[in-house]
């Protein structure tokens, strides 16, 4: 596996990680910092802002983790950083 290949792989890995974390933090912060956007609406009997924060965010993060594992696996194979583990 070429050294240059690992550099590119690492940059893409870091970018993916940063993007996922930033998106999750933004989703968590939005009902807190922008309550007006969510006020007056409800889902399943719950105020929409609280629903997004307490219910939607954890489920979306859960899905994101498995999606990320798949995506990262694709990167790993594309840049040939897997190899055989002993």
């Amino acid at each position, binding site marked *: 596996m070429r050294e240059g290949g690992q550099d590119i792989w690492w940059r893409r890995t870091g970018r993916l990680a940063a993007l996922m974390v930033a998106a999750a*933090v933004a989703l968590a912060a939005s009902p807190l910092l922008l*309550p007006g956007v969510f006020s007056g609406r409800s889902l*399943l009997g719950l105020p929409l802002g609280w629903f997004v924060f*307490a219910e939607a965010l954890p489920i979306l993060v859960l899905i994101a983790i498995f999606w990320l594992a798949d995506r990262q696996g694709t990167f790993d194979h594309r840049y040939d950083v*897997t190899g055989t583990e002993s």
Partner: protein
Amino acid sequence: MARRQAAGTYRRIAALFTSAFIVALVVLALLGHFGLPESLIGAILGAGILATVAAVGINAGTLDISEFYLAGRSVSGAANGMASAAAVMGGGIYLGLAGALLADPWTGAAITAGWSLGCLLMAVGVAPYFRKSAAFGIADFLGIRFDSGAVRIAAVVTTLLALFAALAAALAAAAFAGALLFGIPEGVALTIAVVMVLATTVLGGMRALTLTAIVQYIVLAIAFLLPPAVASYAEFSIPIPQLTFGYALDQAGFLAGLRADALAEALTGVFLPLQAGGAAGYLAIVLSVAMGAAALPHLVIRTATVPSVDQARRTAGWTLFFLLVVAMTAPTYAAFAELTILRDLRGTGLEILPDWVYRWSDAGFLTVCDGYVADGIAAIEACRNTPGFTGNLAASELAIGKDLLVFAAPEIFDLPYVGSALIAAGALTACVAAAGAIAFTMASAVGNDFYGGVINPRASAGRQMIVTRVLLIVTVAAGTAAAAWRPDDAYGFALAALGLSAGGLFPAMLIAVWWKRANAAGAIAAIGTGTLVTALIALEYRYPGTLQLGAFNPSPLGLTELTAALVGAPAGLAAGVLASLATAPPTADDNALVDAIRRPGGTPFVQEIESR
């Protein structure tokens, strides 16, 4: 082949135990219906669960070092996720989250959101690299990464500081749950809990911990899901409380005369102090829990038990999944309890309240008109001087302690006694699982990371395991002594563990993986500064005025033992960066080591003890 066989073992145990457990519950419920005394129901249920867990733990005894510390690196992501969830659940989430949601819906939700973010941080930033190193603990990982005994020692000290109070709290909560379940004194229940912790750790180490944690998770999950499912079915004919509790809250709000969007009221305008219930405060909780979860020693250590780096990423997802089964059920307790109390108790004569009100109040977990009342006469006396006294209960006059809600829920929802016994059994197993994981992590940190990494690196595998086993007994004994002193805030100590992990360990883990320029001096500065700052703030919060910090007093910020990490972690990170830049840069070999940690493939570079 061996790994596939091991994966099959976990699946078989889970399937067998789940089936047997459900059958046993149905039989006990029927026997209770036909007159079996409640004390016997609790004893049979509790003894059966404990005997099963002990048998699995003892049978998993091993002399193989890889099995003892890493469960043979053969645990699938899903099984590991289930075991990890059981390990971190403890009293804090299992008992405390529902009560936190009852007191303040946004605080409870912030904790769940924080755990979600924490699992994501672990999946992207910690778990794959920790697994690649095949280190036996955080201190081992940092010691390998920075090739420094001093870094190991610093990490071991922080690990012990973060986890000791949580161990004592888990044992105390287990004693309380065991006393409820068996109807015995708490001292005897504490002894039983200690025996269980030792049975699940000393002989089999991580292998036993994994197998027993799977059994324990099944118990606690079924126990936690059942009461609100029954309440939801009774109210809405839908046994999925996660879908219906919003409507229960709606009805409760209507009964209490609250506006429908009352849950949003907490967010307007307040930023400081953080405890005042504003948006900044909730975000502070989210970020602190996230950093703490990503660096929680007894959670991180589990990611080394899976067969590959890919499974390590996925295990964070599975851990979150199994945590959410409980965490997303917790609000349903608060919702259905509110509805039941407002609809069925409000307006009831104070002298004819249900027995559970007087019993829990007499035990000190529930107040009527701000007083503890043992019977109807005491209740009337307590409420006589309240404005508008009518002799009937007003909803605001009943206050349930936040740790009580889950225990009292089966009675609030009018379930048969087997429901109460099940909840107590679930709490007991959750706390024993947490105590076992914490004790093993602490003993392993000293026995392997410190003794094997610094004191006697040439120690044989057998000697290291003996030292760790002895340390396990010593650790549990110390935790028991502290638990007997009865720390009565398991929730607070669980949060303190998260805060110290976030402040003391997270910055070092971050720079270890993500910044090649980081060196041993930087790691020591990061750990030391982060731990010290977080600990001082937490101490000042717990015991105000003790430290005489003058202008540096953090009280105006409203930081707690958890959100102290918001100052501790950045301080640690800054110290780590500055110390690294001020000292010699890493060598080419050091950089090659970091590249090896980052690469998912290739040979794990941990120095196997047999080759020393």
